[in-house]
């Protein structure tokens, strides 16, 4: 019988939650790396026992960990992220030039086919790659070299490259997203990049239709339709059916179209999930009611999912890397909150249950479906 492993990164350590395919009884292991901020923990699709973790702290900076046994034991690998050439400057919050400085790894995206190859999205925004299991990292400098880099400006959380999507049908194609520069695509394995922000409108920037400067919070795709992308922007839920060349808004009847997470049902490429958040200054759900909203039509028509979720006095946030789906026959959906709960649905979102309630604030959630 299949089983599921949920990898949870929190402000004070990482946790591994395990269940069989029924997904009703869970074991909680951890904390791993207690006391450290775990921005992201993700397993290799090519070898589920290979897991990578981003570990950081204000005292001692960045560490990257790797496990070869499904998270039982770990070893620190290379943590040297050196920008290619002279890093130059991006914009600071006040519009002045600010030197590019490495701060942390936000996201680790293992290759779909090779356990030793991983892409890392970092702050200040850049993408790095290892091809030796983390023993060394090198920047894919074409992204910052695109030419718009000096115009990039940080979002409130920093100038972070937080989303990396690998096209399963084309190993040369990847998508990334940066707060608050926008989305970019490469069609040559990361050598060169194109901004893909046409159709995004952001009222909070001087030119609402600018080529770069949009605060993209998350992008998701279904592996069977890699040209269709769904985006939760700072405000607005967006959709593209041409690999990001053009976007259109699909917020529809959402009560608020601000939010961070977005994901796609593994078995239904037009079924998508968001967690609406009240506003960019009030990072909590509307009216104290934690609700996942689901669209079965790829956007525009949405329904609230509330069964098992707190419907009063709930003022948590769900951060951008904190939702994931498994690949069982009935798709499991998982998300973590800044209040330390990890909620799971084993029925595509119809009903929810807290796997665990009192972890440190959750930064990221990933799922591995094991044979």
């Amino acid at each position, binding site marked *: 019988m299949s089983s599921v492993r949920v990898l949870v990164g929190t402000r004070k350590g990482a946790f591994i939650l395990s269940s069989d395919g029924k997904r009703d009884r869970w074991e909680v292991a951890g904390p791993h790396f207690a*006391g450290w901020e775990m921005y992201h923990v993700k397993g290799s699709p090519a070898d589920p026992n290979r897991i990578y973790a981003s570990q950081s702290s*204000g*005292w*001692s900076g*960045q560490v990257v960990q790797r496990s070869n046994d499904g998270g039982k034991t770990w*070893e*620190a690998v290379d943590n*040297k992220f050196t920008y290619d050439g002279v890093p130059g400057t991006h914009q600071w919050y006040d519009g002045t030039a600010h030197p590019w400085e490495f701060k942390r790894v936000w996201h680790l995206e293992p290759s779909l086919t090779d356990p030793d190859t991983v892409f890392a999205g970092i702050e200040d925004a850049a993408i790095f790659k290892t091809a030796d299991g983390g023993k060394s990292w090198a920047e894919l400098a074409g992204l910052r070299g695109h030419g718009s880099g000096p115009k990039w400006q940080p979002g409130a959380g920093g100038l972070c490259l937080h989303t990396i999507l690998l096209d399963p049908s084309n190993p040369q194609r990847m998508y990334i997203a940066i707060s608050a520069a926008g989305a970019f695509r490469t069609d040559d394995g990361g050598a060169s990049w194109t901004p893909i922000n046409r159709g995004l409108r952001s009222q909070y920037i001087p030119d609402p239709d600018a080529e770069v400067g949009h605060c993209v919070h998350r992008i998701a795709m279904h592996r069977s339709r890699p040209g269709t992308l769904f985006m939760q922007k700072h405000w607005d839920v967006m959709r593209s059916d041409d690999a990001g060349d053009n976007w259109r808004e699909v917020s529809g009847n959402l009560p608020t179209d601000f939010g961070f997470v977005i994901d796609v049902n593994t078995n239904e490429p037009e079924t998508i999930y968001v967690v609406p958040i009240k506003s960019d200054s009030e990072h909590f759900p509307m009216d104290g009611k934690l609700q996942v909203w689901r669209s079965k039509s790829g956007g525009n028509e949405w329904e609230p999912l509330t069964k098992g979720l707190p419907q009063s006095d709930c003022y948590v946030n769900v951060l951008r890397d904190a939702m994931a789906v498994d690949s069982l026959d009935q798709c499991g959906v998982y998300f973590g909150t800044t209040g330390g709960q990890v909620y799971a649905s084993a029925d595509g979102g119809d009903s929810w249950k807290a796997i665990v309630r009192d972890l440190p604030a959750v930064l990221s959630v990933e799922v591995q479906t094991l044979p």
Partner: protein
Amino acid sequence: MTIRVELPQFLRRLANIQGEVQVEASAATVRAVLDELEARYPALRGTIRDQVTGVRRPFLRFFACQEDLSHDGPDAPLPEAVVEGREPLLIVGAIAGG
């Protein structure tokens, strides 16, 4: 020469170190001690000083013999009591953060 080093608890755990470490340093300086410490415990690379610039991380400080050595520079000579093994070099994490 053998230098005794005490690390903050979170770095001892990261590098799987129990208690005090004794480092065979090629010179009586913080730089030489850290060079040897990082060679022996690669997990510590980048956690005490920046890997590129060599600059000490701002939330970590170096103390010995009840003196703050943090601003003496990495090549300043360590106190005699540290060189002779009577006192450890303390690497201390700031009491800060949440």
